């Protein structure tokens, strides 16, 4: 028992450390990939290949003056940036990174993930309201509407995974994909989940929340210095988290494709290293996908976002769920 607890704390520490640093790595990756797509060089002055650019960014953010709007709501203005960071950090508690490598195994882990994601919307919404600026408020309201709307298809897509597993524990979801990844069994669910995950993390093509042509900076128009830095951090953390979730639920978690059929037995250490490498590799790919999409696909209009969510994705995800449930029932009966 004691050993297991030590193990969980180690995993928790490592996961949080990686998650916090991943934001810096993502920023660098985003800038390099963006410049590659746009056929320019990108950051290359600070350190070799510009690798220390994120450090310079952080120093810049820390040293800037922190401005709070005079007419704004000071307390909430200060609390708001912390909320998305906290909710992002909460999610790593239930994600398995390898065989037996997880912080905790909650009986309702999938719901826990949804709950944590659903709380994230408060940060953006409150930031918009507390700034007392119409750009911010519009950004915040858009965020609230969009995130609440896309939670439904996200949840339905997850439900269509859960009925394969027969358990709401994320660890069980990962274990169940040893032979067949759920993307092969439930491709429509995977597509819906990926789209909804993009919308939930407010990334292009769903970044209406901060659409600069209309709303200046959106919800963070009135934020500066490290408070802005927190939002920045949270955005990239959500990209990482959502990549992890896509990996966990549809792309086999830490399993190689059809690993159950061909992967030989190995020692615990070797398996752990392999698992973590596989998981990190897949997550890195999806982070790349996020960045790739951002620099290639234009933004939707707000009404398009809403009608996509409510009248396309939601019915489709419910239908997908019902069909899968019927097929599984027929097979089991």
């Amino acid at each position, binding site marked *: 028992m004691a050993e297991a607890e030590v193990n969980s704390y180690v995993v928790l520490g490592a996961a949080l450390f990686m998650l916090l640093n991943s934001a810096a790595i993502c920023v660098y990756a985003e800038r390099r990939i963006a410049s590659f797509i746009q056929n320019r060089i990108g950051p290359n002055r600070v350190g070799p290949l510009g690798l220390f650019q994120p450090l310079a960014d952080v120093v810049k953010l820390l040293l800037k003056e922190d401005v709070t709007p005079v007419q704004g709501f000071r307390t909430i203005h200060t609390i708001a940036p912390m909320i998305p960071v906290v909710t992002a950090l909460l999610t790593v508690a239930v994600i398995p990174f390898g065989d037996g490598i997880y912080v905790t195994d909650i009986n309702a882990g999938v719901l826990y993930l949804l*709950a944590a*994601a*659903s*709380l994230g919307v*408060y940060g953006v919404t409150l930031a918009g*309201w507390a700034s007392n600026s119409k750009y911010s408020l519009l950004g915040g309201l858009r965020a609230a509407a969009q995130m609440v709307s896309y939670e439904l298809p996200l949840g339905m897509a997850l439900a269509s995974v859960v009925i394969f597993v027969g358990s709401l524990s994320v660890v069980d979801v990962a274990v169940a994909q040893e032979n067949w990844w759920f993307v092969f069994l439930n491709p429509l669910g995977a597509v819906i989940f990926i789209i909804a995950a993009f919308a939930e993390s407010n990334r292009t093509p769903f970044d209406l929340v901060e659409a600069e042509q209309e709303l200046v900076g959106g919800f963070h128009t009135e934020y500066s210095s490290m408070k802005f830095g927190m939002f920045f951090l949270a955005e990239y953390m959500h990209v990482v988290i959502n990549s992890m979730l896509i990996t966990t639920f549809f792309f086999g978690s830490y399993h190689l494709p059809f690993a159950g059929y061909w992967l030989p037995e190995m020692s615990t250490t070797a398996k752990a290293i392999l698992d973590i490498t596989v998981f990190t590799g897949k997550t890195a790919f999806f982070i790349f996908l996020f960045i790739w999409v951002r620099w290639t696909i234009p933004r939707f209009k707000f009404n398009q976002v809403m009608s996509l969510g409510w009248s396309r994705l939601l019915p489709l995800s419910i239908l997908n769920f019902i069909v899968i449930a019927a097929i599984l029932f027929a097979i089991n009966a």
Partner: protein
Amino acid sequence: MATYAFVLLAVLAVASALAMVLNKNTVNSALFLVLNLMSVAGLYLLLHAQFLAIIQILVYAGAIMVLFLFVIMLLNVDEEESLFDKFRAIYLVAFLLGVVVFGQIVYSLGGVTDLLPEISADMAYVGTVEAVGEVLYTTYLMPFEMTAILLTAAVVGALMIAQYKVKTSDQEE
């Protein structure tokens, strides 16, 4: 340990509920309600009712309160006048009623010696998703299905009231 957590959460729940009622600013009130819901979720967790706790956060704090905030922000409700500007006899009646209700609660808690029950394995099982699901689809099947009708009716009804002029096929011809 659990007792300390209970006291902390209970105080937080009561305090945030009071703060919600007494606060003049509507947005603040809504946020205190969120805090209240979360501390109640924490209490559920102490009783090993994981499913209930998470659903409480997911549904109430995560979805319903966001919509509340959405509406409050859109309407930009002004600061409400204080409830207690003038003394009226009706407040006295309300206060006395409150005392009676409070007395009831105190009475019902009077026999409780320990703050938290000893949670056995059986009790912990009741809080799991499997147990809740099983009960919902056996003992409470009928109310569960009826609730489905209730929610459908509520959604359709809200739309009926919100829509200014309902169009029918006959009118379009």
